């Protein structure tokens, strides 16, 4: 238990945030509780489920294994930010059309993880998609529909040359 407080300044979805946080507070708790960004979810708090996935300086991380104080000076992006910029709008639409989400609790983390894969590997195989998503737990879908949606977007993006 600790009450050590730290001042941090960071960019969250393009907005500059200055806050005082407890040193022990995780990034995902900070985003959810202090900033009201409840799109990032908490499924396990021990780094397994991937529901808390957010982007830190351009790379996806587990929001439950990252402390808010580590993000001083950093650039953090969440599903809310990606939605507002439209960066992965095609992926979101594909998830909706293909019913690649049921309860939707895993979805923000899934989308950020899939977006990273598609940025690095233009048309991954189904196996490569499954492998890349294998740190994101989904209890509802059985994964098949998620793989379909990601595969379809990869092909569409490659086809349209973007």
């Amino acid at each position, binding site marked *: *238990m600790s*009450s050590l407080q730290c001042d941090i300044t960071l960019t969250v979805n393009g907005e500059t945030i200055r806050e005082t946080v*407890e040193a*022990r*507070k995780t990034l995902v708790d900070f985003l*959810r509780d202090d900033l009201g*960004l*409840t*799109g*990032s*979810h908490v*499924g*396990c*708090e*021990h780094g*397994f*489920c991937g*529901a808390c996935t957010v982007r830190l300086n351009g790379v996806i991380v587990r929001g439950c294994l990252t402390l808010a104080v580590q993000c001083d000076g950093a650039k953090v992006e*969440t*599903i*809310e930010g990606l*939605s507002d910029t439209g960066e992965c709008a095609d992926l*979101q639409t*594909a*998830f*909706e*059309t*293909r*019913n690649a*989400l*049921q*309860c*939707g*609790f*895993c*979805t*923000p983390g899934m*989308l950020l993880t899939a977006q990273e894969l598609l940025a690095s590997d233009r048309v991954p195989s189904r*196996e490569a998609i*499954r*492998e890349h*998503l*294998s*740190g*994101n*737990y*989904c*209890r*509802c*879908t*059985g*994964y*098949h*529909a*998620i*793989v*379909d*949606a990601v*595969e*379809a977007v990869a092909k569409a993006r490659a086809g349209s040359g973007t």
Partner: protein
Amino acid sequence: MKITDDVPSTLTALDRPNSYIGRSVPRPNLARLTQGRGHYVTDVTLPRMAHVAYVRSPHAHARIVRIDTTAAKKMPGVIAAVTGPELAKVITPWVGVLTHLKGLKSAPQSAIAIDRACWQGEAVCAVVARTRAEAEDACALVQVDYEELPTVTDPETALDAATHVIHADLGDNLCFERSLDVGTVDAAFAGSDAVVETTFVFGRHTGVTNEPRAIVADWNPGEQRLTVYHGTQAPHMMQNLFAKHLGLEESQVRVLTKDVGGSFGIKVHTYADEMAVVALSKLLKRPVKFVADRIESFVTDIHARDHRVKAKIGVMNDGTITAFEIDDLTGIGPYSVYPRTSGIEANQIVNLTGGPYACPNYRAHTRVVFQNKNVMCQYRAVGHPIACAVTEGLVELAAAKIGMDPLDIRRKNLIADNAYPTGSASGLKFEALSHHASLDKLVKMMDHDALRAEQTALRHKGIYRGIGFASFIEVTNPSAAFYGVGGAKISAQDGCTIKLDAQGAIVCHTGVTEQGQGAEAVIAQVAASAFGVAIERVRVITGDTDNTPYGGGTWASRAAGIGGEAAWQAGKALRQNVLAVAGSILQAKPETLDIRDSQVVDAGTGKERIGLDEVARIAYFRPDTLPPGFQAELMATRHYVPRAFPFSFTNGIQASYLEVDTDSGFVKLLKHWCVEDCGTVINPQLVDEQVRGGVVQGIGAALYEQCVYDERGQMLNGNMADYLVPMASEMPDIQCGHVVSPTADSELGAKGAGEAGTAGAPACVMNAINDALRPLGAAPLTDMPFTPGKILRALGRVS
């Protein structure tokens, strides 16, 4: 991207113009969830809201000698520290029994343990603070003195005279027992050409919903009302229970359920730590929030399965099955869970075993015993995965013993498709099933002969692949026979209210709830079709006891079949009402009119007469222009409950193709197929996704998932690193197909589809593993989960 093929509607009654029945329309409102704008209970915050954390027993069975909360109460942010006896002044205990499960007994359970903790993880003290972190800090300072008591963990010895009785008042550790003996079982076995006898073991596992259990209770003394934001499947059931145990009227309790991060039966029970939250809110007169963390979830979310079944099958050399016999034993923790009881899974195993087959001789015995482990109760496909694995395991072992093809033995014994209505030896009633049509379809889908040829060819190269099957039946659309007749206030009926808004769109209020399975979409499709508008003109409201018709919610695969039928009838009723208004405006007979795509049209010619927006405008703002004495009724409610059959059974068959690495014992799943018959398919894509998600949950049970306990009742792997769940990289693609045998009990003809995948998957994975290893002379594997260690032992590679 290919959306699952639409299945054309097969019923003329549903063949309305622009019908959405049978179409894979995407679910409305999904963009909220993909954009991170959902509203889960874990997201709820209210003014003055406090957070509760629990001190939980580290012992499986211990007397609580003394609790000292002095230091905890002095911690910053702490609002209260409350023990069991203190909370018992606000909330009464409960006993999880149902009168139709004869002889089932249990002991009173309290929101917080009073003088004794009966499992590791039972809450013994609550600490309420400004933040969850502060509550947890203070929990660490609560001093509890325990005196350890003897623990009962092994069901096999739970009934021995030497074993400690957990609840002395009950006399023994037996919760429930049932026997059934139908036909001439002994004579049938004696006359059989072959008898196979084995023991099946099913690992204790749990739901691991991605969003843990969560509840926010807000007692408002000014209104004398309790508002509960609850991640539940059954808001009206919880309204009743909160009211009953807090001493309130149901009208004083409102339960709100918005987005739920997965439920699968986990969130349809009464949890002591959630009952404590509503009591704490009442006590402290402010909102209190509880979210189970993952470590708490593992020792408090209900567990399931954990059955040991001794089983026997008799068979003739021509493949005729002569008899089934089972002896089942299960340990369900220290309490039967309220209000559905923990006897249902065992009861279902007795009901369902042998169910797909025309075999008149059946004997079954089950015992449900108390033990000092976390409680067990109903989880997705209750009893089915066990009954199915026992039945299908026996059938394939018998086929192997007499040298018959596993599909041929099924063709010989599955109830004929033209035999309905009929029943099972255990007394189940079947309205219309399609085992043979489903099997034929599966064989085509999987290109069975080519697969067998590939399997044989690879065996010569030392690659061991297996093909396994599982025919199954599934209970859906339950009538009051499930719970109501046993005295539980769990509604079997459900309702739907549909109203026309002032611009001609409709709003549906339904008693069934959305857990991600697509209930809202199904209601919207049905209402749009029945009434006559585009689906974009339909809004669906669920999960609010103040604003939806009384209903049961979502369980036992009932939302589409029961909630859907209520919506169908309400849509039709509102159409009649609106046509009455239109008729009076147009001076036409209502029966000559219809509604199509938001227009009132001539039924015969389809010619547009007046828009719904105009009908609404006149009815709401210029009723003075309507004929004297005519009153427009632009809201209609209908209810529905199945009456002709206690349950609407569905059926199907699954197949698994996999490869066993005989050096490492690892199983690689290559492909999975499922053909199922859920009657009218309202939305093929949603049905397929229910099947796929269910199959993967069943695969988890077969290969990975198990709550491992030691003999002292300590759970050893209660975290997501040690408790293995299926992840994307290990799961196969799953192909789905349908046969359609609608139920005549409703106009819609839809049966449930939510549990079929989970029911059959463990059985066919087991059969596929045994098929792969049979040429190597391995002893058949019947002890789930099939870990690499067990497989290597069966192969004799390790001892």
